[in-house]
């Protein structure tokens, strides 16, 4: 089967400090990446392929480039080097409540956020009940109150519910595999499992070993922006733990 995610020698360079010198020349004529000591490569030389139905867990210390890689696959960061190609649609569980507006009601917000991620109003209509049911009875009772009156738990529950209702075959998850209280987290896990059983491709960034072991079959290990391990999740976690032990 053809790969759904392919990266080729992928690299991205960031500025060390927030202050960047910006000249008019750079604005209009910058070609390619600039190289100066004020920058560092958050990720470099990453080449990998992910096939449909695979569940990949991204492992590594903070600052290793995990979220950066995820964002480049999601298309919300543009690489400075190499290429990334994603051949199927993506449901990004990155900023769950990013599209929600406090002043509008939960009902309006569901239509808006789902619409932003490419769902037509008819398609939202069709799964509206499913989305609300999943978010729970508290959310249903408050459907017509402004979203900002929701508790933070209810807000992320609704966000999770909307994004996981998207039809996209690839799920990109940055730490938010499960949200809310204990009961709701269990619900999230079950939904994830059923999505995986349907044959979705999962790309998960997490520091939670049990989550990684539960959902992923393949592991990728990123260390200081380099891909240093690619194998079964158990092997990759073992290598990662070995490194941690060595550093202590």
């Amino acid at each position, binding site marked *: 089967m053809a790969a759904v995610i392919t990266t080729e020698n992928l690299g991205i360079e960031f500025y060390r400090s927030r202050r960047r010198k910006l000249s008019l020349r750079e604005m209009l004529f910058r070609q390619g990446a600039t190289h100066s000591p004020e920058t560092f490569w958050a990720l470099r030389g990453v080449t990998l392929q992910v096939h449909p139905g695979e569940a990949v867990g991204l492992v590594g210390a903070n600052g290793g480039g995990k979220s950066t890689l995820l964002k480049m696959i*999601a298309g919300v960061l543009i690489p400075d080097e190499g290429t990334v190609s994603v051949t199927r649609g993506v449901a*990004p569980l990155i900023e769950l409540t990013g599209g929600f507006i406090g002043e509008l009601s939960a009902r309006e917000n569901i239509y808006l956020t789902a619409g*932003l991620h490419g769902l037509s109003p008819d398609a939202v209509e069709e799964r509206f009940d499913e989305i609300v049911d999943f978010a729970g009875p508290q959310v249903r009772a408050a459907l017509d109150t402004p979203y900002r009156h929701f508790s933070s738990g209810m807000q992320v529950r609704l966000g999770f519910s909307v994004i996981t209702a998207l039809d996209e075959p690839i799920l990109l998850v940055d730490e938010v595999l499960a949200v809310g209280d204990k009961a709701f987290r269990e619900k999230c896990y079950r939904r994830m499992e059923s999505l995986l059983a349907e044959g979705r491709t999962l790309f998960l960034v997490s520091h939670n070993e049990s989550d990684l072991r539960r959902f992923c079959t393949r592991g990728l290990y990123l260390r200081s922006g380099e891909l240093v391990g690619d194998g079964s999740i158990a092997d990759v976690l073992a290598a990662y733990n070995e490194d941690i032990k060595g550093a202590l």
Partner: protein
Amino acid sequence: MGLFARVGALVTKRQVLWTLVKRDLRVRYARSWLGYLWTILDPLAMSGIYFLVFVHIFRKGDIGHAPYFLFLVIGLLTWQWFSAAITDTTRALLQEARLVRSTNLPREIWVVRVVIAKAIEYALSLPVLALFVIGYAVQGSVALNARLLLFPVGVLLLFLFLIGAGLLLAPVTALVTDTQRVVRIALRMFFYGTPIIYALDRVPSNFETILWLNPLTGILELQRAGFFDAPVAWGAVGVGAAVTLLTLAVGWRTFVRLERAVLKEI
């Protein structure tokens, strides 16, 4: 990606674009019940003030075409659209940073949607203009002419100019936040550099040619042509249209160049 591919990507996402525009309008009108009134109250109040100041205090009723109040209303409604769109596109990427960070949409959408939403607000304010025109026409002080057809041409030019300016300003602001302050001051200066409260033909001729460079000069010439008998300054229209297209080209190019840096920054 070439320019055409980028426009194409935007067109395929028109449903999302429309969703965003509706969201903008809904938020604006959900926040205050006076929502619609504010869009017309501001230009009308300013028209009243300028009318009082120039006609009754300075006794200079002849600095614009007659009737001067109608002259002011046309100019200030357009100015309202212009300044609101510039202010909002300037922070278009910053304000929606969370969405820009989490959705893979053609990034131009964040600018274009502001300009469209403001254009719709402008369109909604036109019935007020129509009321004034009817009033003056009944009174006999205004006679419409066929050049009214130039009005939508002016609207289209302003729309294109705003997209160009927005594509230029939004990424620059995301990288250099001070831009917002600079834009606020520049807008105030721009107001007086635009024939809003005065007519172009009342300007000393050496200044007049400088004003041609301001695209709003030509746009207002087109918009006012149908209501007043004064000849259209085609030089201003031509130069203004050229500046508009240039702004659009430079804006789009800048946006594409800076996109990568902006995504890292926000």
